[in-house]
């Protein structure tokens, strides 16, 4: 089947999509957007997190056909047009929140949505918002630092 939807603001189309295929597969294998990662394909790890009509979801659990006509934002959509990193991305770099980096795209999408919804999150809010994203390297402390840093910088910028 053919599936058409908006990805990071631009209309995209994929042909010969298998009916049981996930949005994650379509993004990575058909649209050349490998930023969203595939680690578990069962909703446990969050490395495939994207926004569907603004809402963070595991793209491995969304059927491609369900996305017809809708809007998807992936990690590739976070940076500016000229490639300059977003506040959350820069904070992850500066805080040393990236080790192997496999979990990073999912965490960035989740953290970005948190700060949009709640610009001054408590530590509890951050933990809750990131509770669906697993990291096997960092021990999470640097990731929490990065989100706090991004929040502080967002506030300064206002």
């Amino acid at each position, binding site marked *: *089947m053919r599936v058409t939807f908006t990805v990071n603001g631009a209309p995209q189309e994929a042909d010969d999509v*298998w*009916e*049981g295929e*996930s949005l994650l597969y379509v993004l990575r294998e058909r649209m050349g957007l490998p930023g969203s990662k595939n680690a578990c*394909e*069962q*909703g*446990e790890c*969050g490395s495939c*997190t994207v926004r569907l009509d603004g*809402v*963070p*979801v*595991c793209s*491995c*659990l*969304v*059927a491609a*056909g*369900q996305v*017809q006509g809708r809007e998807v934002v992936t990690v590739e959509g976070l940076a500016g047009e000229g490639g300059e990193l977003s506040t959350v991305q820069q904070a992850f770099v500066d805080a040393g929140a990236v080790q192997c980096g496999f979990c990073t795209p999912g965490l960035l999408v*989740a953290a970005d949505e948190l700060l949009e919804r709640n610009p001054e999150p408590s530590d509890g809010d951050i933990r*809750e*918002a990131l*509770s*669906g*994203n697993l990291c096997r390297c960092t021990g999470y402390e640097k990731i929490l630092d990065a989100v706090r840093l991004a929040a502080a910088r967002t506030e300064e910028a206002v």
Partner: protein
Amino acid sequence: MEFLRPASWEEALAAKAEHPSAVPIAGGTDVMVEINFDHRRPEHLLDLNRIAELQEWEVAGDTVRLGASVPYTKIMEHLRAELPGLALASHTVASPQIRNRGGVGGNLGTASPAGDAHPALLAGGGEVEAVSVRGTRLIPIDDFYKGVKRNALEPDELIRAVHLKKATGPQQFSKVGTRNAMVIAVCAFGLALHPDARTVRTGIGSAAPTPIRATTAEEFLAAALDEAGLWESRGVLPPAVARQFADLVSGAANPIDDVRGTASYRRHALGVMARRTLGWTWEQYRGTEQDELDDRSKPCA
């Protein structure tokens, strides 16, 4: 495989009538796992995402009609006052990403004994609105669970909504697992006081082939509260009553040993959850310790 994308509820019912073996897909958080792992290859997937009314809820009189696909996140945000038990249970499901997609219709469709909505639905009381081209039935929640992952739906039926009684008293939900997020319940317990009817209802999860009520415990507690005039006096609950209630809840379960826990641990944990949730709800009914109760209603015990 064919992907059916009905644009309206009537089209969805017609598609289900034409293809009774079609697998409905709402949030996909159960269905897609099975497809990704090749555990299921349905001939037809029936997408429900385009049917707007499944994502809506209405509060009218003393009931809430909750659309089958209202995601858990919305229940937590908007229905905490009307459906406190279900809102607490929703908050313990998986992770934000899963709660943004999954909902009660899917939980009922899967009908896993470990589904977190079930103890809250059983305790709160309500009916499942099952619809087909033949018509609409309201299935009492007590009659909905038929076996391990089996429910009372006919092959041509879809769940339109659940009709839930608006809370008339305090409700609680408690779940045992290894951490706060992303945990399938080792066992779970829901409790609702219904002061208007002077009854108490319960729900037990993950401790029998289906979600069940602990009816003997409910009847014992309601009688004890009546006899001592506690519904009116809002007096202190005698510890012996709480203990007996906990024992009866524990005895109602029929758990098994599995990777998540042993049967005897589950029985023990259910007794502890029954005693605690009774303590919290009763104190809330008495109108005391409000601040502490607010703390306790945060996720999850």
